[in-house]
């Protein structure tokens, strides 16, 4: 039971999310189906993402991590749920052009990002992450490493 849900959810949800956000024409024109893949070009296809794409190309993780490695959860359900939510949100925002610029990461995606750092670097920082005395647990990696994804911002 659980299995079927996890399988069918993303397949339906992403196009649904994109369609709701963009209308089908825009979804196709903006090459919405590529959103499902892992290629960073899928994100950069949307010119709004150009800056982050350019930064990523020059950044330290270019060779080792793509957009989704950092910005989507590393479990299957979470990954496609996030893609659906983001897909809906980005498409809607892009079509309505009603988002705040410069784009700023939101709390939910920031939490995912933190988990992604730990996914790859958890061993290295085990000692730091071990004795969190609050809900925060490990320190926020981007407090010091905000440049890893897209190079220095200032």
């Amino acid at each position, binding site marked *: 039971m659980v299995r079927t849900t996890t399988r069918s959810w993303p397949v339906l949800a992403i196009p649904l999310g994109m369609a709701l956000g963009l209308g089908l024409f825009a979804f196709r024109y903006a090459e919405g189906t590529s959103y499902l893949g892992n290629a960073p070009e899928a994100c950069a296809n949307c010119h709004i993402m150009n800056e982050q794409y350019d930064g990523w190309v020059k950044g330290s993780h270019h060779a080792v991590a793509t957009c989704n490695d950092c910005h989507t959860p590393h479990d299957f359900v979470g990954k496609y749920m996030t893609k659906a939510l983001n897909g809906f949100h980005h498409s809607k925002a892009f079509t309505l052009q009603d988002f705040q610029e410069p784009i700023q990461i939101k709390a939910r995606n920031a939490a995912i990002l933190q988990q992604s750092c730990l996914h790859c670097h958890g061993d290295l920082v085990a*000692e730091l992450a*071990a004795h*969190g*005395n609050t809900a*925060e647990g490990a320190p926020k990696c981007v407090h010091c490493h905000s440049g890893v994804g897209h190079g220095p911002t200032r």
Partner: protein
Amino acid sequence: NVAERKREARDPYLRLVNVSEATTDSKPWGINWPRQFDGYLRTVDATHTQYGGSDGSPTASRLEKDPWLKRLFAGYAFALDFRERRGHAHMLDDQEQTRRVTERPQPGSCLHCHASVIPTYRRLGDGDVMAGFVALGKLPYWDAHAEVVATGSENPIVEGHTQRFETVPGAHPVGCVDCHDAATMELRVTRPGFITGIAALASGDAPVPHLPSVERWREGDRKKPYDANVDASRQEMRSYVCGQCHVEYYCGPKATLFFPWRNGLRAEQIESTYDEFRFDDGHRFYDWQHAETGAEVLKAQHPEFETWSQGIHARAGVACADCHMPYQREGAMKVSDHWVRSPMLNIARACQTCHHVPEAELQARVAVIQDRTHALMATSAVAAVDMLDAIVAAKAAGASEAQLAEALALQRKAQWRLDFVNAENSMGFHAPQESARVLGESIDYARRAQIAAIAAAAKPATK
């Protein structure tokens, strides 16, 4: 080797021995956490930077470097001996050896920040740290020191598969137990001065946007006092542990040691807290009577926490430990550098994760800030000396106490501000604009005191 690193990574806290809340000696802790202990041991080393560092000799006198300090401190123990700070390992030795202690009576409170003192507080207070803190503070320095030696350290002795604790007499400088919970290794604050001081700050209404947990507590029901160990975020704790000692304080015979934060952390807010304070005998607050002028003046001590609080780094959530204990990679592990020292000795780790510019450029930026502070402080010092000369001259000319009252009131304000920047140890880096503002005010008060003294001398009562 790779296998070993992987094992290390899984088991960050492999404990070989148990340590307790009374293990003031850091050596046994070092068995469990050798990397941090190695760093801790390095604090004994001599280092050098333009305005900071630890030159390794206990004789580097700030009084010889800046002779105007002797005038400023005339009549106070600081005019006798005031040296460059050094690394943590030296803190107890340096206190034992200063002429302020060897030639002047001092209270037991001095040990609050120079020794691993909490178990002694607990013992003297029969389990109540606060009571013990008050009691030890009332003893003369050397009597209190003897109590700390007697408490000693509860050290683990391992025999085969069992372990017992044994008390080894002796006093220790700040140790692991002063910042870490012995059971969980979590950061925590232990110093009564800080715990009470930060609660007083929270209960007041001075804005502290750099301490979100205080702002949050203020919005709550305020039934329990603000408790740093419960309310603070981990990031805040990375500054609070330092704020236990790197702060302005009152530590003298006339009241229990306290951190004057009720009205806020800025120089004039602290001044106003002091001005509102009354000693038991009803007299207004002062540290000592100035030997040349008779003014009842204030002494500032290392207000690093307060100054950092006014700077952009605090505002941006950057903690003391971010710069003074940066992470460093050791094998497969990233650990905090426990060689607490000037970040200018370790720019790559202390600054460059956040500031992606060359090391020389960062050095130059710091130099610009520090040189500016230094230049303005020199101007302020000349003004202060001119002020003292003018008051002395007015007294010699026969000006009455009443006639000098204004000059002396201004002297108190002028000295306080100059000393606030002088005693702070970053030469303005922790809050560049604020330090310059405080010096600007000091200049104004000093020159106005000079003018008031000149006026008093012009028509002396005795003529």
